[in-house]
């Protein structure tokens, strides 16, 4: 069962992403929450593994489904694309009522949404995988990390991986 703080954080992330023009599908929410957790060091309580489009949390996946099931989130269907999340009226009320639970995470939520709002999934995969590798081997220099990104995701070229690592570094600073 998802707790209120996690629910509010996920809802706020969806809301912020949409506010920044993001598609706000599951991949977008997954990567944004990963950055919130690892880059902004806001404890989301979700465990991430490296999955289809980079870091992914099964717990977050289950929580999103739970929020759909209890009517706080809804899917906006735009064939043939994957669904977009949006807050329902009940979800908006819930978020307003419990917004105090977000506390100090609010600026970080806004920042992550600004970073990712205009980005497509291919970019999100590169950035999130680059962050994954930076965390996995912080002592390595960037060319080594870029080769590791390429090794984990062979469709990401070493050049693109280098650029993603550099972007992540900029975000960090």
């Amino acid at each position: 069962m998802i707790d209120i703080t996690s629910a509010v954080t996920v809802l706020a992330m969806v809301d912020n992403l949409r506010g920044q023009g993001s598609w706000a599908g599951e991949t977008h929410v997954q990567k944004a929450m990963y950055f919130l957790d690892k880059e902004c060091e806001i404890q989301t309580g979700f465990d991430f593994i490296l999955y289809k489009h980079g870091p992914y949390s099964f717990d977050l996946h289950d929580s999103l489904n739970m929020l759909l099931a209890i009517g706080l989130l809804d899917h906006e269907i735009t064939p043939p694309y994957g669904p977009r999340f949006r807050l329902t009226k009940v979800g908006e009320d819930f978020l307003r009522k419990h917004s105090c639970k977000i506390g100090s995470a609010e600026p970080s939520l806004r920042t992550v949404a600004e970073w990712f709002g205009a980005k497509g999934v291919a970019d999100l995969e590169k950035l999130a995988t680059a962050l994954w590798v930076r965390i996995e081997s912080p002592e390595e220099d960037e060319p080594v990390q870029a080769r590791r990104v390429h090794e984990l995701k062979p469709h990401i070229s070493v050049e693109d991986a280098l650029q993603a690592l550099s972007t992540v570094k900029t975000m960090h600073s």
Partner: protein
Amino acid sequence: MLKSSHEFRDPLHVFIRLDPEERKVVDSEPFQRLRHIHQLAMTYQVYPGATHRRFEHSLGCMELASRIFDTITRRDNIRKLPNDVCYRLPEIQEEGRLSYWRKILRMAALCHDLGHLPFSHAAEGLLPNGISHETMTKRFILEEMQDIWDNAHKPQPEAELIAKIAVGRKEAPELEPFTTWERILSEIITGEVFGADRMDYLLRDSLHAGVTYGHFDHHRLIDTMRILPGVAQDKTQEYSPEPELGIELGGMQVAESLLVARYLMFSQVYFHAIRRIYDLHLAAFLRESLPCGVYPTELKDFLAITDNEILVLIRKAACDPSLPGHAHAERIYRRTHFKKAYETMAQDLAQNSKVLEDITRGLEEEFGAENVLVDKTAKPMASRDDFPIRNSNDRIISARSQSKVLFSLHEATAWYLFVAPELRDKACAWVKNNVDSYLKPRTECHD
């Protein structure tokens, strides 16, 4: 001379054939143990035909997994994959290597249930914290079966690969990373819409229980299964280059019928109130009679306990009031199980989300806690994951955009209150007289 092929006659798939190495797996002690683990626990007390075991289900799972594999790797079925998708699946380009992957998949499907406890899911809560039947399955594959893998013909199957594919990514985070191909292979077994495990248990449980709720046209479903590009995640993509298991458009209705079949099987068979109360009595009996109330997890000790040993324990305890678990053993053995006094309906929950807890408290105060058992189990029925469908224009579309059925099925619930049979009439009358007052939230009681 050693036979090159062995066959089992199966009530569902007719003939299931095995090669000599697979036969060694079947002959192993962990696999033979599955002959003595009922697939549906004590469901046979309600549906007398449901006495089938994990043994035949595991064979069936292997058979269906192989059929899926053969369909999705057929040359003309992968010919249409775009280059950037093929790039992520180098394994399917090497035709000579496909037979190796097929072997791994079949071994994994055979082994996927090795770690089941006696009576399957009924008392899984008695495993120590952090250990599930999947944990035990992995241990059997990685430890107990190692000799079989080591002595297999080259290329030898890797134990770690078999374990990964048998239990899937969610249950094997310590075996990361999974390649895209390994993920797809594990989904062939464990997938929630197309998984061979799910397909086989629905069809088999339905057949043996003597009901038709679990039927769906699995031949058609498997025939339409494909490896496809993923659904476009947003407008920056035409499709996602990450390959997924999906279906041709013509398979959508049968995919829907599988999920409906599952919903019906849960509501009519798996969550049948009498079946559930046997599970509760069984778990309570084991909690009292096993040392420290937990299952052993040493492989040797684990292997030594099957349904047979538990049934003997139940019979002994039922006949001897001095033995631990006597009361629950007697309820099972003499079929004097607790009876349903209340079932939570959706409209009750809409009025008071804690109605089950509130009525439980009321019944316990009135009749004594020892005379009340509560069951609160729910299972999501809708598909949790989107998947790609290829339409007649070769366009990849989202299943979620095509099917309301797949994603809107209600969860199946078993929210029951049971009471000792001698109190049933009084308890039912009490519930009837008091239920309305419990349909208002009693928040003051919780403080």
